[in-house]
Every structure is written in C-alpha cells, then in structure tokens.
C-alpha cells in the first residue's frame, strides 16, 4: 500500500477532510495496537482519541520525506498507551497485562471488525509458531527495540532480525495472498 502523502500534507495544512480519511485508513490498526496493550475497550477508546488529537496537533513534526507515516503513528500510539499504563489509576485496575498477547485476544474475542478477514487470520494465527507470536508481539505490538527484544527472548540480535522477517513473511503470505 503506497503511503497517501497528498492526504498527509493536506492534513498538515489544516484540512479536516484529509484528516478524516487518514483516520479511516489507520484508526482500526492503531486501535488494535492500543487494545492489545491495555485490554480494556473503554480505556482503549479514550487513548485512540488522545492519539489522533496528538496526531492533528503535532502533524507538522512528521515529514513525508523521512520515515513511514504508519510508523510515526505507531510510536505516538505506543508512547501514549505506555504512559497510561504507568499511571497510578491504571495500575490499580489492571494487574497482569504482560501475560497477554495478540493471539490471546484473537482466540478469546468473538466480535471483530472485519469478520471474514478475521476468520482467515485467526486460522493462520493459530498456526503461527509460538516463537513468531512472541517476537511479533514484542517488536510490533509492544514496541520493543531489537536490543530489548534480543534480551527478553535471550536471542542474538541477528536471530531476532531474521526470525522476525521469517514470521512476517508467513503473515504476508496469508494476509496478502
């Protein structure tokens, strides 16, 4: 998918319509990332709002010449969500988040956004090797750096890179056909 640079530039110039279209394109995925961390719909909704308000207010800090817009969104979403999980109020309500990953969410949830797509993915994800689930969860959903992932998984850096590539390739084959 080519990045919609025209829409991004329009949004940076204050175009609400362009912002609305970017929201439609990216909000579900960002919501998925946030939800996989906080595991609470109400909190995740609030964080999604906060994230997109930040996107609008700080739109000028992104440049289409540098980095992917989606990666920029991911960083805002993860930072906002992690700040929230560190807050006292949040800690009091949620105790053991680290034990859950995206596959747990998929297998425990009945209602998904894109039902058909989800069913196909669900089958695939069930078939994903536990090692793949772990590495994608850390690097993509939880926002670990490769060094942090390497330490957590007790794997050399090079192995983290190649395993991550292999796992995402498998995902690609399934998602994009």
């Amino acid at each position, binding site marked *: 998918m080519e990045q919609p640079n025209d829409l991004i530039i329009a949004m940076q110039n204050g175009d609400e319509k362009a912002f609305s279209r970017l929201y439609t394109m990216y909000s579900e995925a960002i919501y998925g990332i946030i939800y996989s961390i906080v595991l609470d719909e109400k909190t995740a909704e609030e964080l999604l709002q906060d994230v997109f308000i930040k996107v609008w207010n700080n739109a000028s800090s992104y440049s289409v010449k540098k980095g992917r817009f989606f*990666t920029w969104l991911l960083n805002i979403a993860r930072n906002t969500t992690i700040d929230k999980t560190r807050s006292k109020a949040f800690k009091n309500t949620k105790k053991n988040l680290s034990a859950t990953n995206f596959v747990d969410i998929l297998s425990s949830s009945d209602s998904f956004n894109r039902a058909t797509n989800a069913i196909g993915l669900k089958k695939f994800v069930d078939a994903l090797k536990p090692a793949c689930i772990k590495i994608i969860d850390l*690097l993509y959903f939880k*926002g*670990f750096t490769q060094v942090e992932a390497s330490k957590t998984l007790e794997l050399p850096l090079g192995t983290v890179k190649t395993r991550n590539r292999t796992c995402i390739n498998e995902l690609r084959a399934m998602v994009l056909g």
Partner: protein
Amino acid sequence: MTPEEIIASGNLELYVCGALSPEEVTEVEEAIAAHPEVKREIELIEESLLHLAETVAPPVQAMTWTYILNSIRNVKNIGDTKIRTLNWPAITGWAAAILFMGGIMWMLKQTNDLNNSLQVTTTENTVLKEEKATVESQLAENNKTLEILRSKDYLAYTLLGNQAVAPESFAKVYLNNKEKVAYIDVNGLPTPPSGKVYQVWSLKMEPLTPTSVGLIDPENKAGEGIYKFVNFPTQEAFGITLEPEGGSQTPTLSQLYTLGMISI
C-alpha cells in the same frame, strides 16, 4: 548493500515496527530513496502488519471520531497563527449586538434628558403661571384703584417736597371727602432706609395740631406704590415724615419729606 541484501536482512521489518537503531534507519531510508523495489517491500510489510493490528481491534465506536473532531475544533487556532481564520458571521453578530446596545443606551440617555428638561419646563411653566396670576391680580387691583381715582368723587392733591430734606420728592393724595377715604401715591418718595417708615399726618394749622393718619406699610397697600386710608380726617394740610419703625406719636419735623395744603 544491494537491494536484495537489504530486503533479506530483516531491517525493513524492524524499520516498519519502529524497532531499528537510528544508524540503520538512515541506511534503510537511503535504500528506499535509491531502489523502488525496497520501497515496494516496505509497503507490503506495512500492509500485512496493518491488517494484523486491525484484526485485533474491537469495533471502533463512531462517537470516537466525533469526539476527536470536536476536540481539534476547540483548539484549532491555539499555537497555529498561520491558519487562524476570522469568524466573520460571529464578528458581525457581535458588532451588531454592541451597536444595538450602544443605540439603546443612547436612546435611554436621550429619553432621560428629555424627561429632565420636560420636568424643568413644567416647573418653569408653573412658576410662570403663578407669576401671571400675581400680575393679573395686581393689574386688576391697579385697574380697580385707577377706576376709583378717576371717579368724580375723588380730588387730587400734590404734596411737594420739603426743600430742606428732600427737594425732589413729592406725593399725591386722592381724597374722597364724603366717604373719608384717601389714596396716597408715594412713587415720588425715595425708598425709606432700613428701620425707618413713612408716616402720614393730617395737620390743622391754627394752632398746629398733627394727627397721625397711618403708616405707609403693606397693610394699607392698594396697588403698586398706592396706599389706602379710611376714616381720613379732613384737615387743612397733609404731611409725610420719616419715622422709626412702628411710627411716632408726633411727627419728627426735621424729617418732613412732603407737605401739601388743601383748599377746602
């Protein structure tokens, strides 16, 4: 590194995840700019990860977007002076409201001023009416007096000024012998100094016997400068002297202002 090596390195996946170190980011970005196939690969990785995250998301509430939109509209112009827009309808509305308020204040002030001046005018009117009534009654009184003096029953005498005291003074006496009524016109006399009063005397010559007729005071006033006396004794002469307030038993001849003889 060749494009193929970069694609196989696993750095592109980490780049999309945001997990790459800054030096490697620069390397990847240079490769993206130089090789379309690297860019294409990045796009495919991104798309599959996007789908994966979407799958995990519960349904997004429509209200979420409404909330975002309301929030950004409220803070739209804060810290962004470049695209500050003027809300002309609102400005026009406020301007109209301010003008309207100003107009109302001005009209209230006008009404207030008019009310005040109306009150003043009404007061003036009342004063003028009173003055008019006074003048009219005075005029009627004067006319009545004039009517009386003109009648044939009254005879007029002029009392001339005493050369020693007041050579320019004079007084006029209108006498009705039958009814013993006299009107005395003192316009020719100077205004008496404070604490003093004019007293009218009737004089008998042989021997000189003065009889007080009365004081020139408001009690006897019959018109402007005209005083009325009843039971006026008919004698040979009249005189007017200046006396201390309240009058005297006998005339102070040194202060005799006017004197006139009557030829009966």
